[in-house]
């Protein structure tokens, strides 16, 4: 199982990402954890390492950019790919995210297929091989 952390304060966006990735047409062998805020992400990150972190940029308190910077400074998460979710309008924030070390971004709104493609691309680039099907208890 490859662990993916979704950091997003909107419950339905989280549900959309989770259901898209975990559905039969989604990405095989992934386990999605949800963080409801930047703080929640800080709490969940030590349970990693995660194969991929997907984070919204605009969140109250700790924003997505701060999370990217935090992860890039951390031994455990330095190499974890980070996919930013942002709105079309916030080009500037997106560029900042990429400069801070995010691996890519998805502009909202995005279709399920685009999400799956992007996630697969990042998982591949991180070189995280899926565990053999026999070991994962996925049914």
């Amino acid at each position: 199982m490859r662990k993916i952390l979704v950091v997003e304060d909107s419950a339905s966006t989280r549900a959309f990402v989770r259901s898209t990735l975990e559905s039969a047409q989604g990405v095989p062998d992934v386990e999605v954890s949800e963080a409801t805020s930047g703080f929640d992400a800080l709490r969940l990150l030590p349970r990693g390492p995660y194969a991929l972190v997907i984070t919204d940029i605009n969140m109250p308190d700790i924003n997505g950019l701060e999370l990217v910077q935090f992860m890039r400074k951390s031994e455990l998460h330095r190499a974890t790919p980070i996919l930013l979710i942002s709105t079309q309008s916030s080009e500037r924030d997106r560029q900042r995210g990429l400069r801070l070390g995010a691996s890519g971004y998805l502009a909202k709104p995005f279709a399920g297929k685009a999400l799956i493609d992007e996630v697969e691309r990042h998982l591949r680039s991180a070189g995280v091989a899926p565990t053999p099907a026999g070991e994962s208890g996925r049914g």
Partner: protein
Amino acid sequence: MADPTEKARDEFLSEAQEIVETLSRNLLDLDASARSGAVDPALINEAFRAVHTLKGLAGLFGAQRLGQMSHRLEDLLDDLRLGRMTLGPDVLDTLFAAVDVYGRLLAQEREGRDDPSPAADELLARLEKLGSEAPSRAAPATEYDLDPSLLAVLTEYEEHRLRANLEQKMRLYRLRVEFDLTTIDKALEDMKARAKRHGEIITYLPAGEATSADAIELDLLMASRDDLATLIGALGADNVVIEEIPRKRTSVGTAPPHKPYAGDLVVRADESVRPSVHGDASLEQGPSLRSLTQTVRVDIRKLDALMNVVGELAIVRGSIARMAERLRAEGQRQLTAELQRLHRSFERRLAEMQAGILEVRMVPLGQVFDRLARVVRQIGREMSKEIRLVITGSETEIDKLIVEELSDPLMHMIRNAIDHGIEPSNLRAEVGKPPAGTIALNAYQKGNHVMIEVEDDGRGIDEQAVLEKAVRLGKIAAEDGAELSREEVLALVFLPGVSTREAVSETSGRGVGMDIVKTNIGRLGGIIDVQSEPGIGTKMTITLPITLAIVSALMVHIADQVFAIPLSTVSEALSLEPGLSRMLDGREVITLRGATLPLCRLDRVLGLERRKTPAPRKHYVVVVSLGNRRLGVVVDHLIGQQDIVIKPLGRSLASVRGFAGATELGDQRVGLVLDAAAIVDEVLSGADVLRERGALHG
């Protein structure tokens, strides 16, 4: 089974509904704040975020009309929050209208209808008209010494808020706050609520790697009109460090080159309007958001692990010494000499290492004293008593783990002193005392111990009342009470129920039982004494080990073996003449000052065989007390007091109850450290089992 995306869609509709309701409440607040003349920027941002989320959701779930409207509204609110537009009544009206339209559109979505919506079209037209007036403001002109890596993580909105605050001549502060991850939500809300009265928190930045699994440090960038002292007064705490971020004193024309990582932001404020608070030019290199400290934070458990390694090495050292001894016996002079040299060097380094680790664990007691100073002020006010707090020795250092556990007992003691000790000012005047009562907190080091005194100049403890109460509670026989010395009577306040009040007082309820304080101090391996003079005052003295890694113990002999009993649990030792004990309910007991004391013969309980020496005619009883429970441990000899390092028992022995660990005795032998709490528990509650076992071996 429901289609997961169908489930997600249900989730979308209910979340969208919630967001619209929040937006509606939010607009009402915004309306109220606009009427009062001071629009709260946080409210506009919340409205923006609500619409922003709605837009994202509408996109994900293909709700076009909802998406289109949210998109326009988002632009409007973005202009408002970024200061490109001002919030007038017509804008507010439009926003309120949007809430209505959202309601209709969501109802349509839920029913799966896609009718034309004149209300939505009308709103879009209104939004179109509003969108075009965009007065933009120029940024003011002094640079702050902000860390570029901070500027790089600000979102556009946060950057705008920073700029807006600087335009209003706010000062900038960095608050480094350590949060416990399990309580961060509450702690953060609390922090925000307090900060709100003094300014605006612009962002929260996790500061580097998590310090431990359950704590994290955040850098809060805050703008405030208040000076540093005011902010420290309002927000200061043990886990908060507040620093002002100075203005950079740059002359006109030498604007620094554009830093690529600083993004697009140049933070400027008008230097000429508010002169720099710092006249000192050296502050140009003053504190920035970058950490200047050379310190690392270490989880104390890691130090515990290191200390264990030291203990292991001490045992290795013992083996080397034995080996040297054997070589000497075999006449290998040269090898012996070399090995002994090695051994001495090893021993020295080991001692240095142990001292080094202990030193790292030490923190000044001032950490807890500062907290107590606030408590004293507060309780004094509550009780309308004027209290002067005098602190000495706050630089005295003690093990971090102990400091953490000290604040509660000390707080209880101080409460008791103010509540029961210090007289009301009119009574003080009658006996010629100054109106303000004095509480002194003194700390100092004495050998391997730290002494903390809590002293008050109040009325002192009424011995007679204490004695009467102890007798009434059945803690002591009336006839024995008469024989007690003054110290012994005072010590009765540590028995449960004796120190508590009959009447409930507001400050300490019935009074925090001193027995609880004593138990807590005991858990830290410490002891507490009381001295009191009627009319003059009371002094409680806590004696604590400097560290929990080293413990003072009473070393005893039982059946040729050495055992260590932590001194903090030992209340006294006495000799046991043969024939003095008697059987009561199948248990061996003696009478000690009118009270029955159950005995425990460890040699029998543990099945120790006496090979070398027969049982002595005369034994000793070590009275072990934990809270109100006492047990006499019968031993052969008392060896004396020794400071020991407790080593955990190996895994195979970990489940054996009754031992806290083992310790090296210094003469190449290992002694077991008795876990007094477990033994008292075992003997006083599971007496039957132990008696059986005792009979088997006895």
